[in-house]
């Protein structure tokens, strides 16, 4: 729209719209991720045209300081959103050195709130928002330093943006300590007058090291909105980490031929070469500021819901795109896709606060299983009694396991709706013998699904020595009723399916841990096993799993049913013989379905 109108339209209305987005900031033409149109930017301009600029919203950058007197920052600088934790004073001004090593925070801040139309440098996504900086990376970072930064002025600051974390070296497993964890909890429960502080986090740059962002306890947290990057061409950047806790994506740098991010820089200067997931999180924070201006009543969970519903998979290329049990496309590289500012603002305007978050924890009984070298095992856990959670949000699989080499372990989780989530990939640099001690691998991939039914955890051991899993707990977060009043049960999954066509037939034929074929074939688009099981029809139980059903009931996912669950049909012995061949071809599968 912007590009089409700019050169020659003469009507006064068209000209006024053009004027609204024709900034005199010299770097504005280079801000490709905001102004290239054709569905290839983050759709910020339509929000600006409606007067949404982040006004009234306060964002702070937790980093190495902020050059508060920068000409593009000073107008929006907010001292009440600023502090120097490293030097214990109110001034977050960075320490200057020969290499400008403390430019990071100033760069991140300009992405959010660089002043527009001041004939200088760039335009912040939320150029009407207030911005502050917390200087906390330029010194020893301790649990107390992090906690103090994360809990700065939580009734004044709306959004905390963090573009840092544990080393992305492919061998670290680390997260917030007890104080920082408490800061997250206090922030999300009490911040912003109880609506919850918004914590936005860069997912990590460890792609080259084959790191996995689920090993970073900050991005892997339910309290943070974890953001990954896409390149100008819509590709997965070389530095990107794949993991199931990434919620969405913004543009950032890519290969040498691809453009980078424009923003403010130290010494009152400007740069067009800000890079990495560091550059992505502040763009998301800026978009979040626009959204909060359109509806200040949004809670921290409302914002995550809106991201899930509005992020756009289109134009983002990744082999890991899949469709979850409610028909949403989701990827381990991009989460639910590219953030769409205008759509988020639109949805936010009429958004009804989501129902209270419910939590249900299920402990897998008697988990003490060896995983032989070069083998995998599958554990199953029936969820039947989490009556308070019917619509999933975050899911955590809390796992304790020992291994001679932690990097040899891979973890996959399959939901009752047959969504397969990668919780952990092999990490070639991770030689640790520490294993995982109650590490909460988090996934957002089953958002909106029902938790009821059988969950499966696959543990692969690619190493040369035995591994051992000793504990598996599932922590399910979500709501008892649909998150929006007009969301009828399963309505969204059908709408989504119509959008995306028939390429989503699920193949539920597989060997389980004991090598037995399942007795029921799941077909079609959605595998929502409603919890209408008949426990009385089970003849033999083991660890809450039914082993044999009384005829004429049907056996499906370790439970007995009087009628086939939705999207399943009775399977004969003949089906078992044929289907493993036919189902290997998705087209044939879809046709059969």
């Amino acid at each position, binding site marked *: 729209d912007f590009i089409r109108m700019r050169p020659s339209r003469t009507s006064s209305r068209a000209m006024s719209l053009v004027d609204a987005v024709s900034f005199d900031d010299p770097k504005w033409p280079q801000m490709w991720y905001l102004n290239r149109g054709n569905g290839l930017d983050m759709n910020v301009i339509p929000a600006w045209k409606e007067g949404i600029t982040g006004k009234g919203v306060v964002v702070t950058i937790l980093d190495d300081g902020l050059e508060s007197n920068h000409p593009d920052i000073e107008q929006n600088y907010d001292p009440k959103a600023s502090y120097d934790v490293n030097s214990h004073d109110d001034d977050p001004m960075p320490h200057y050195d020969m290499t400008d090593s403390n430019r990071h925070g100033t760069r991140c801040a300009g992405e959010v709130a660089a002043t527009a139309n001041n004939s200088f440098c760039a335009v912040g996504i939320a150029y009407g928002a207030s911005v502050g900086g917390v200087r906390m990376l330029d010194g020893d970072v301790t649990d107390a330093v992090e906690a103090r930064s994360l809990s700065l002025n939580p009734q004044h600051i709306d959004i905390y943006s963090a573009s840092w974390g*544990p080393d992305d070296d492919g061998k670290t497993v680390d997260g917030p300590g007890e104080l920082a964890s408490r800061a997250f909890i206090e922030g999300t429960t009490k911040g912003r007058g109880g609506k919850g502080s918004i914590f936005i986090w860069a997912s990590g740059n460890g792609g080259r090291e084959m790191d996995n962002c689920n090993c970073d306890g900050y991005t892997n947290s339910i309290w943070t909105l974890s953001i990954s990057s896409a390149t100008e061409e819509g590709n997965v950047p070389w530095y990107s980490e794949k993991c199931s806790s990434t919620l969405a994506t913004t543009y950032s740098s890519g290969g040498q031929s691809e453009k980078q991010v424009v923003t403010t820089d130290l010494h009152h200067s400007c740069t067009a070469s800000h890079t990495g997931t560091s550059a992505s999180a502040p763009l998301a924070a800026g978009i979040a500021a626009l959204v909060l201006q359109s509806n200040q009543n949004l809670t921290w969970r409302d914002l995550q819901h809106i991201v899930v519903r509005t992020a756009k998979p289109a134009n983002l290329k990744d082999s890991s795109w899949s469709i979850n049990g409610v028909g949403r496309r989701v990827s381990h590289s991009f989460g639910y896709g590219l953030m769409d500012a205008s759509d988020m603002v639109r949805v936010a305007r009429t958004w009804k606060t989501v129902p209270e978050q419910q939590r249900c924890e299920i402990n897998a009984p008697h988990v003490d299983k060896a995983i032989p070298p070069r083998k995998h095992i599958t554990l199953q856990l029936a969820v039947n009694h989490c009556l308070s959670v019917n619509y999933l949000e975050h899911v955590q699989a809390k796992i304790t396991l020992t291994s001679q080499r932690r990097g040899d372990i891979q973890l996959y989780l399959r939901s009752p709706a047959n969504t397969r989530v990668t919780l952990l990939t092999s990490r070639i640099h991770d030689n640790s013998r520490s294993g995982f001690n109650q590490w909460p691998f988090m996934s957002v991939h089953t958002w909106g699904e029902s938790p009821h039914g059988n969950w499966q955890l696959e543990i692969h051991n690619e190493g040369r020595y035995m591994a051992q899993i000793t504990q598996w707990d599932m922590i399910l977060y979500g709501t008892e009723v649909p998150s929006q009043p007009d969301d009828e049960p399963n309505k969204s999954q059908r709408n989504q399916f119509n959008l995306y066509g028939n390429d989503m037939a699920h193949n539920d034929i597989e060997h389980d841990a004991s090598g037995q074929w399942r007795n029921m074939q799941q077909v079609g688009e959605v595998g929502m096993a409603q919890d209408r099981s008949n426990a009385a029809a089970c003849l033999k139980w083991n660890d809450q799993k039914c082993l044999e059903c009384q005829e004429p009931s049907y056996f499906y996912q370790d439970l007995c049913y009087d009628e086939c669950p939705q999207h399943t049909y009775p399977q004969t012995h003949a089906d078992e013989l044929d289907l493993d061949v036919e189902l290997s071809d998705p087209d044939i599968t879809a046709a059969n379905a």
Partner: protein
Amino acid sequence: NGGHYTHTWAVHIPNGDNGIADAVAKEHGFVNLGKIFDDHYHFAHHKVSKRSLTPASHHQTRLDLDERVHWAKQQRAKSRSKR
């Protein structure tokens, strides 16, 4: 497997706002750097090395024995990287 010990502590002092946190810090040779959140305070001790492989047990013990202190922990550095 935390990093080196620093010269700072996190200290939980219930109702520490009414000058109690400052008093506790002063009596034990610390400086109160301010509040972390609620009744948790950030203390520093300038006679403790900023980087040490071993904890400053003597100063920890003094805080532990003070009845006004509910909990105290010497802080260890964490490796954090810009992205």
